[in-house]
């Protein structure tokens, strides 16, 4: 199986504090990889490093075999990696559909003068963007919220909007940072189905989650982090019964 992302000995520290040290794991193409661990384990820092918001202090990150560490965020998105944020991140002052359209920017060809003169090709692109934005919203069950102002969405749809935004960039890899926080039981179940659907469309996923139902329910494999490094890796069953993991994170029944 192809390794679509390879984390090779990555270190990241801030001042004297080491957020990630010698982290090594891979994401296989087409899998949903769970990334779990206590708060402060370095999961979000890892996402920030993969997506170019930070550069690793040591080690490399490969995407489809090529190095991406050190690239700027927009370049990494262009390569095909998208992420969501732990906190709800959206553009206020615009509708839901408007937000998604902003995410489509990556696939447009029209240059300054085409936009200026409102050429046919530009208008065709805009129509395509709008149609596909609505499609993405529908696929995540947000169709009814298309024309609502994004900041007025209820919490569940807001979290889903974050995923839609990432999907708008047509990624091959999706990094989800606690997307199910604050969802009701019912919303979570639907959400899990949606994530599986995204994977079935060929997108590889790294999922950071604290909710074990979600993690054990949809992840093919799990990587456990603590204090900035990997402490275990394996199938959900293996992880559930791993002594170190239970000690550090899962707790005893």
């Amino acid at each position, binding site marked *: 199986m192809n390794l679509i992302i390879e984390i090779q000995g990555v270190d990241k520290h801030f001042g004297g504090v080491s957020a990630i040290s010698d982290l090594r794991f891979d994401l296989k193409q087409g899998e949903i990889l769970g990334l779990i661990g206590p708060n402060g384990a370095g999961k979000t820092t890892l996402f920030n490093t993969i997506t170019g918001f930070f550069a690793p202090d040591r080690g490399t990150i490969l995407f489809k075999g090529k190095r991406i560490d050190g690239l700027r965020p927009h370049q990494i998105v262009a390569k095909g990696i998208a992420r969501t944020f732990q906190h709800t991140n959206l553009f206020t002052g*615009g509708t839901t559909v408007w937000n998604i359209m902003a995410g489509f920017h990556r696939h447009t060809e*029209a240059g300054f003068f085409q936009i*200026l003169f409102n050429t046919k090709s530009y208008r065709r692109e805009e129509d395509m963007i709008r149609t596909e934005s609505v499609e993405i919203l529908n696929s995540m069950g947000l169709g009814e919220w298309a024309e609502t102002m994004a900041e007025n969405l209820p919490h569940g749809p807001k979290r889903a909007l974050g995923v839609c935004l990432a999907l708008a960039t047509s990624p091959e890899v999706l990094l989800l940072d606690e997307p199910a926080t604050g969802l009701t039981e019912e919303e979570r179940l639907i959400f899990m189905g949606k994530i599986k659907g995204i994977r079935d469309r060929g997108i590889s996923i790294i999922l950071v989650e604290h909710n074990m139902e979600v993690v054990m329910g949809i992840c093919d494999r799990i990587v456990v982090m603590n204090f900035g490094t990997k402490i275990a890796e394996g199938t959900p069953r293996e992880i559930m019964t791993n002594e170190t993991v239970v000690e550090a994170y899962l707790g005893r029944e």
Partner: protein
Amino acid sequence: MKLPIKKAESRKIFCLAILILILFFIPVLTSDPYYLHMLIMSGIFALNTMGWVLILRVGQFSLGQAGFFAIGAYTSALLVNRLGFSFWGAWPLSGLTAAMVALIIGSVVLRIKGLYFAIVSFAFAEIIRLTIISWPKVLGGLDGLSGIPKPRPFSFMGLIKIDFVTSRVPFYYFLLIIVFIAALIFWRVDTSRLGRIFRCVSQNGDLSESLGINLMKYRVLAFTVACFFSGISGGFFAHYYGVLHPDSFTVSESILIQIQATIGGTASAVAGPVLGATVLTILSEFLRAAKHVEPVLYGGILIVILFVLPKGLIDLGPRLLRLIDKKGRNTKLSMEPRKSLETTVSGLEK
């Protein structure tokens, strides 16, 4: 519902057409150079205020527009005076030179945000001004650069003779055309995909980057376009005035541009800035008669406007309509559902 929207749109276009018609016929109604001068100065400022708002759209607050105005002015003046260019050859270069400088400086400086960018932009404009002062041989220094010729008279289609020397009217029409074209460009950019991206860049840089938007590319684009028009207005100014002095390119001018744009209303790309430039230019001219009290009156009026219409002068119409709406609802038992007047003007929706 399509119908109400169409009504508002066609009403707007109708008003715009009337306005343009009036502007077109003003020189016919009055050849008093004083009024033409006020409108010409308004137009020059309008080119700058529209640019200032464009820079604001990418989330940057510029206090340096006077610097690019100066670059345009002195470029055109020198090309004509020293290198024998004609006005028509030199004037476009005034915009291009300002744009190039903006491109180079902006690629570095636009990485800084907020207050710090404001300070740096102000410092840049000051550098320009101080360069002018300390290079009297070429740039005239504190004595000013004089003898800038008006554009040479020419015949349009062999029938109409256009003489910039004896009358301000050609300047007025020329500027009117320029401002109109500029307004179309600024409006088009703001309402297009670019405007959408600019607003995203301004509002949430991290999210924009994680959607693949190259922040610097769009900041530099907005900045360059805005400074092109500042330069163009400067080139025009040089040949209209005939004389350039560094006192015309101080931070006060930069601040004035910002004030005009804000008073006019920054939610709009054209109407607000143009209105602000025109109203404040005319106001300050009329208040001149008040002599020493003028600054107090001027400042006082600005404060009142900002209190009553925080969104700017363009909000006057909608505000009155809302007041009338409210009054109507209070006096009759209305079974109509409350329509929320969505401030989509100030929002991001097209």
